[in-house]
């Protein structure tokens, strides 16, 4: 019995030693598993961080990226994809890693500043040039005769934020009257002629197929559309109040402990909060946390009144259950169409 235990310890000890020595022999490699539209951002973050790390530690570091629909990506990590860090656009996609398999420690939000969210974006409107339908605020989206393009709230984080933004706006407007808020989002989603599976699909429907009067999407995506496909075909409209979508990040504890990459992974995520990382973030039209940078790029980020899921809607767990679970508010409203 004790001999067995000794053997186990020995093996464990040797394994640990090997793991701690490994970085000295081989280059450290980190895998960042992320959501769909952060591709361009991390393409710029990674070399900047690698240069900094090399300067400090005299060793090379490689960072691989994996992008895709956020829930699918989280599912892949649960399924065994060895991600050192996970960078998402909504907290539930990291919480699921706590629940399933304990891959991430439950207190992940406390490990980094700002609840572990280095940046955020907000839901805004993109309308056709000159805004022919006169769309200024959420109430205009619920008007008869306005076609609204939104991705499916069941399958897309972007769509979920749009739904919650409309819901939060209605609650504010009707002073917490849920019956009237329900009626409002029902009308708004009744104006949706096409439900795409994800944010990029909705973008294509609106810009390439010419369907709809207004696209509701994240600020960074809207700016990108205007730059890439726009050529002055669209106008950006900021509603009176909207939802803020913080992008959470976490170290995948089980993986970094196994690979011995905790220091590098933590440094990588900390880099996102550094002035250099925040500047790259701001240049990609995500709203940085650093007040100095917000000021520097004030022209890019007009001040808008915002609320978050935590501040106005009682947190993700509650929202998920009340709105998006099967038979929840979204299903009820979809059934009445």
């Amino acid at each position, binding site marked *: 019995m004790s001999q067995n235990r000794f053997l186990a310890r020995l093996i464990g000890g040797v394994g640990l030693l090997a793991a701690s020595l490994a970085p000295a022999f081989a280059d450290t490699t980190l895998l960042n598993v992320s959501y769909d539209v952060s591709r361009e951002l991390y393409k710029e973050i990674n070399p900047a961080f690698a240069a900094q790390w090399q300067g400090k530690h005299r060793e090379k570091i490689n960072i691989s990226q994996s992008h895709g*629909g956020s*829930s*699918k990506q*989280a*599912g892949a990590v649960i399924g065994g994809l060895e991600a050192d860090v996970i960078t998402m656009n909504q907290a539930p996609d990291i919480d*699921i890693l706590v629940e*399933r398999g304990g891959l991430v420690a439950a207190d992940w939000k406390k490990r980094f500043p700002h609840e572990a969210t280095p940046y955020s974006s907000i839901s805004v409107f993109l309308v056709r040039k000159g805004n022919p339908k006169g769309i200024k605020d959420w109430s205009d989206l619920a008007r008869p005769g306005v076609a609204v393009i939104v991705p*499916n709230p*069941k*399958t897309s984080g972007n769509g979920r934020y749009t739904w919650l933004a409309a819901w939060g706006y209605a609650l504010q407007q009707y002073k917490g009257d849920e019956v009237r808020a329900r009626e409002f989002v029902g009308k708004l989603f009744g104006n*949706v*002629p*096409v*439900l*795409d*599976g994800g944010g990029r*699909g909705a973008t*294509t*429907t609106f810009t*390439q*197929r*010419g*369907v709809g009067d207004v696209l509701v999407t994240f600020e960074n995506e809207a700016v990108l559309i205007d730059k890439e496909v726009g050529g002055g075909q669209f106008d950006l409209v900021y509603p009176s109040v909207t939802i803020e979508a913080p992008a959470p990040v976490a170290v995948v504890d089980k993986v970094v402990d196994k690979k011995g990459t905790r220091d590098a992974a933590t440094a990588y995520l900390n880099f996102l909060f550094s002035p250099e990382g925040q500047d790259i973030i701001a240049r990609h039209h995500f709203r940085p946390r650093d007040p100095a940078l917000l000021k520097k790029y004030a022209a890019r980020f007009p001040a808008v009144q915002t609320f978050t899921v935590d501040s106005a809607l009682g947190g993700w767990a509650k929202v998920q259950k009340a709105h*998006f*679970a*099967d*038979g929840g508010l979204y*299903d009820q409203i*979809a*059934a009445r*169409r």
Partner: protein
Amino acid sequence: MAAQQHKVLPGFHLALGYTLVYLSLVVLIPLAAVFIKSSALSLEEFWAVVSAPRVVATYQVSFGLSLLAAAINAVFGLMLAWALVRYRFPGKKLVDALVDLPFALPTAVAGIALTALYAGNGWLGQYLEPLGIKVAFGPLGILVALVFIGLPFVVRTVQPILEDLDTELEEAAASLGAQRWQTFRLVILPILLPALLTGFALAFARAVGEYGSVIFIAGNLPFVSEITPLMIITKLEQYDYVGATAIAVVMLLISFALLLLINLLQAWTAKRTGRNR
């Protein structure tokens, strides 16, 4: 050295063994995993998932449109095969190769191309929409996509049978006084029917499982143009793996029942026309 059975080539046991192992690895084990995963639900829970009104609506869309698409392909696929076998025309080889294109094209590409074509601002959509025919972002769009991906199946199953079919048969029928329609209905069609049914079944099965191309053109509105595979994806996105497999089980069962029915029908027609072996 008389063999036990009158087979020219040996290796029956080996071949059967390989067949069973291969089929198990590739088909049976993954399918069994689906059934096992869904058994985590109690019977009531399972029923609640698969009989939710929104999910039931997708069965109608998926299976109804798949059957319709397969039927359309059976008619036009037969015509195409006929033209390719019986007539000579310039560019015939090219047309023949074109038939296989829906096989090779990534389905997402097909979906995007069809959507671009039939959307209100597309080449075809701009003429159809003023007439009140809305193809993209509705059930009609799903049908178009399913017809597209199912086309090669009917053509490729009917073509070899038609090539084997001697024109002498038709001449004999004509010389015995059969009218053209009679020749087709009583001589040619019975011979082609088993192959046609196989093509129909393949096109149908392909259409039921299709996701990539449909998703772009469907519009995906609840109760109108959502397909069953989308329901499965939706469940997966919400980390409801068990619910997703429950719907998958129902899809499998319905598909299996329908395919079995078609196969029985095919066996029956084959027997009736004396082509069974």
